[in-house]
């Protein structure tokens, strides 16, 4: 039994089958992007163990194909098992060892990246300073105690908790938050579009601006804009209720919406904080992209958007920033531009985009503990392939040189690299 298991996991057949399945997966996953969008394909096809099929009109989830993680895991086990079973250090095999060592490193590194990578954005207008970046997808319900003018006290509740509904109590807050209604994605409704399921609030922006539920989007270039209706309750009764949404906090949504409603609801500013006072303390409340605070701050000194002469083809985007980190003693100017990011404090800042009219820059901020693995893996595999194929070529050339006749009856140049694997399974007749 154990023999069979070992044979299964060390067989070249498993390698070939898994690679073929991977080819189908990658192909279908590429074609499907046109319909489903990159983000959905990534999570359904590549970052999953199984791909499910849901027949229309049902809620079944029938697994129909292995996902990227399962195939990656199988290939990794196959690779490790084969090398452990047959490991024998020979000079002839050093190339093979390097190739497969590099592949293992690449696969493990990508797995670590998938799990631990944090992606966020830092949006700064020219002249402004920021000390946090915002997550591109995850949101939080933030209650900020702003009574002390010197420092804010932030209580952050993840959106996943808000989505569950009900009462949220935390020892950090002297009141309870009750989620009355929550839409995973929403659109702004005009006063005439009020339907059964609409969020209205009795305080703040939500008094005048209503929200209806919208279909969940899974496209890469389109994000869900959740809306929630929360009520703050004290022991003695309700304090007030508000509509919170990323429509008010996520760029460029609020900018576009502000422009849209400008004429219809004069005097309403989406960026005005919604706040209340309770027991002598003032609180601001918002649903906003999760913030990652840094122990340093970045000021945008200038943003440049260069074009080729006589065209509107972009030639370069660059951000001149000032970095200030009192604890580390860093106080300097830095230029970030295309293909030239800033690496600082375990994070990398890339020139990603810019605000309309070149008013500000948008930097992509990545934290990836495995960012070095592809570099090492690439080097290992490339060297391994080179060693392996060059040694073949050399032995081929040497044999040829010996022969007086042109190449005729000689065994194939393909000296089987994994001879032991030939031992089992029938030999193909093709």
């Amino acid at each position, binding site marked *: 039994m154990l023999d069979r298991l070992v044979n299964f996991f060390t067989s070249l057949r498993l390698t070939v089958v898994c690679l073929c399945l991977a080819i189908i997966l990658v192909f279908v996953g590429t074609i499907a992007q046109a319909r489903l969008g990159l983000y959905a394909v990534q999570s359904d096809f590549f970052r999953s163990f199984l791909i499910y099929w849901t027949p229309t009109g049902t809620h079944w989830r029938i697994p129909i194909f292995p996902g990227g993680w399962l195939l990656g895991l199988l290939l990794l086990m196959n690779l490790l098992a084969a090398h452990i079973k047959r490991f024998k250090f020979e000079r002839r095999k050093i190339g093979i060892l390097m190739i497969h060592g590099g592949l293992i490193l690449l696969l493990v590194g990508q797995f670590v990246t998938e799990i631990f990578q944090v992606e966020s954005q830092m949006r700064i207008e020219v002249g402004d300073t920021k000390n946090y970046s915002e997550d591109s997808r995850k949101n939080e319900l933030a209650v900020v105690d702003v009574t002390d003018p010197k420092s804010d006290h932030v209580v952050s509740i993840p959106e996943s908790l808000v989505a569950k509904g009900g009462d949220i109590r935390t020892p950090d807050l002297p009141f309870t938050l009750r989620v009355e209604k929550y839409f995973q994605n929403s659109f702004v409704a005009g006063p005439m579009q009020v339907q059964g399921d609409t969020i209205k609030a009795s305080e703040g922006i939500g008094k005048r601006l209503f929200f209806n539920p919208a279909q969940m989007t899974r496209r890469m270039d389109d994000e869900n804009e959740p809306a929630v209706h929360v009520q703050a309750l004290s022991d003695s009764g309700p304090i007030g209720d508000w509509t919170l949404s990323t429509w008010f906090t996520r760029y460029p949504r609020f900018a576009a919406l502000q422009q849209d409603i400008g004429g219809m609801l004069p005097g309403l500013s989406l960026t005005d904080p919604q706040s209340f006072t309770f027991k002598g303390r003032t609180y601001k409340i918002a649903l906003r992209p999760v913030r990652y605070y840094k122990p340093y701050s970045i000021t945008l000194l200038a943003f440049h958007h260069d074009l080729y002469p006589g065209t509107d083809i972009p030639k370069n985007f660059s951000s001149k920033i000032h970095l200030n980190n009192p604890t580390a003693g860093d106080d300097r100017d830095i230029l970030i531009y295309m293909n030239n990011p800033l690496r600082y404090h375990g994070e990398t800042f890339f020139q990603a985009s810019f605000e309309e009219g070149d008013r500000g820059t948008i930097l992509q901020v990545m934290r990836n503990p495995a960012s070095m693995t592809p570099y090492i893996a690439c080097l290992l595999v490339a060297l391994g392939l080179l060693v392996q194929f060059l040694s073949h070529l050399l032995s081929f050339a040497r044999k040829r040189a010996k022969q007086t006749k042109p*190449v005729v009856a000689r065994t194939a140049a393909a000296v089987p690299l994994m001879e032991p694997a030939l031992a089992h399974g029938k030999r193909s007749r093709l």
Partner: protein
Amino acid sequence: MKKWAPLIVVAAFAAWFLGGMAPPQPKDGFDIAAFGRLPVLLEGRVQPFDSVARNSLLSISGRSIVRLTNGAPVSALEWLLDTMARPEYADQLKIFRVQHPDLEGILGADKAGLEYYSFNDLTNQIGSLENQATNLLAKEFGMGEDAAKLRNAYQQDLMHLYNSMVLYNRLKNSLEPEGARDFRQELQVYLASIGPGKVAIEQTDEGKPANEQDLERIASFFKRYDEVSRFAYPLIIPPLPGQPRQAWSNIGTNLMLALHTGELNPAATNYAAIATAYRNDKPADFNRSIALYRVWMQENDLYPFLKKGSQEFFFNQIEPFYKAMVIYIAALLLGCIFWINLSEPIRRTGFLLLVLAFVIHSTGLGFRMYLEGRPPVTNLYSSAIFIGWGACLLGLVLERIFRGGIGLVVAGFIGFTTLIIAHHLALSGDTMEMLRAVLDTNMWLATHVVIVTTGYASMFVAGILAIIYIVRGFFTRTLAPETAKALGRMVYGIVCFATLFSFVGTILGGIWADQSWGRFWGWDPKENGALLIVLWNAVILHARWGGMIRERGLMAMAVFGNIVTSFSWFGVNMLGIGLHSYGFMDKAFPWLIGFDISQVLLIVLALTPPRYWASFKDSIPPAPPATPPLPATPSAATS
């Protein structure tokens, strides 16, 4: 004689190529080529008028010359000169290509050949075409770049015609206002009216009575040149000393500027003289004005631009890729003939021709790199050129080692096919276009892009070798066992080569992405395409090492490699999504499908048992009475 015949044939082809380097003769006394060398700024780069002419004509008519109704050819450059300086003549030339029957139905005029119309043929329908086009554009407003991809065949053809007419109109206003009778004279009048005009304007501003005639004259000039400035296509007026080097302007803008400075730019007066001489059929004046302009440019620090214009003109003139393509066909044919009659002089001629084609191809590639100041591959067009070049090099090496005519056929076939593909890709416009911000890095273009493209080239070489094996083995009796073995070795070796390049190239792409977007791998279609090639190579190699395939299996898998590679090279761009969708070509889609079907048929052939193969059926021992007994379980086999 047999010894010399190959050299004579090759010398003839070489002479044909070298003959193309001689400077073109003046036509009716006009030194058209001298005009074609003059530099202008367009699409963000300095290029000669000749390139403007070729690219414009290609995009309007899909051809590189114009045919008169009597069949005589007119070069793109002459056509451009006529369009700019003698529009009423150019209006009769049949250059507008219309393909959709419904559109032909509306136009209904006489056309040249099957599908060409002149501007005059279209004048009655301009209003209707413009209406349809603007309605379509209005409907698509706000849909972004996706809109163009959703157009149906009629809409595509309509927009192509509309855009061609817009381009044509812009060209007409590029050297002088359309239909100017004597532009040189006009500029003198303009210069004389600037002074009095400015006085008149000042007087009006101060509320004083002004000379009505001066005011009116300057206003009408202003209106005229303002219009030209909005239409003019290439920026033909170079920067003056002291101005930034990219500060080119078009003729209209430049003339409006003269209102402030009170004097005309010498480039504008020179161009006016050139245009007027051409219109009035004065070759001597035309040639002298061009010479004077060149002298003026040299005296004003503009020599580098002149040099760039002349070099690119020369590159256009020698047509290295077209000539290499013709020689590739010759080499391909000779390789096929060699398989039938096994005559060594034929093979030798083919080999020498291939060397010649390779030299010409390399010259073109190197010249392009020099002109652009870039590594060889910057867009889809240059990737086709480069794949052909790489495949030719591999074919030469194979032919040198194995001497079976196989290298000739492989190199000839891939060289010819990729250059044809490149020719069709060039129809979409300037092939030396500027690179968008993220691509503007020679380091990554030189490493990632070149290596991945070399991987494509070697995949195609392996695939074509496999096709030779299948076609020769199945249909003919020429595939001797030793040739078959040699082919097997070649395919295996080249798959190894392709694995190395595809893998390294793909990973380098990931590292580039990590450098510029902060993620190593994003499952973008182009990345996936490259990954597919790597995975497929891994499958081939492991299946072979594991004894799952032998010779015919290897061939079938190598042919499938053609499908994988064509998907990665072209197919993913047709999805129209992702960060790499830099060349959307739905017109190529039926070709790609046709190619894939042909490859599938070849794979089916490869998988038929040897007894059906013309080359193998005699060498198989009589069929055994039954299938040989196989081990019942895999575990039994391992023991």
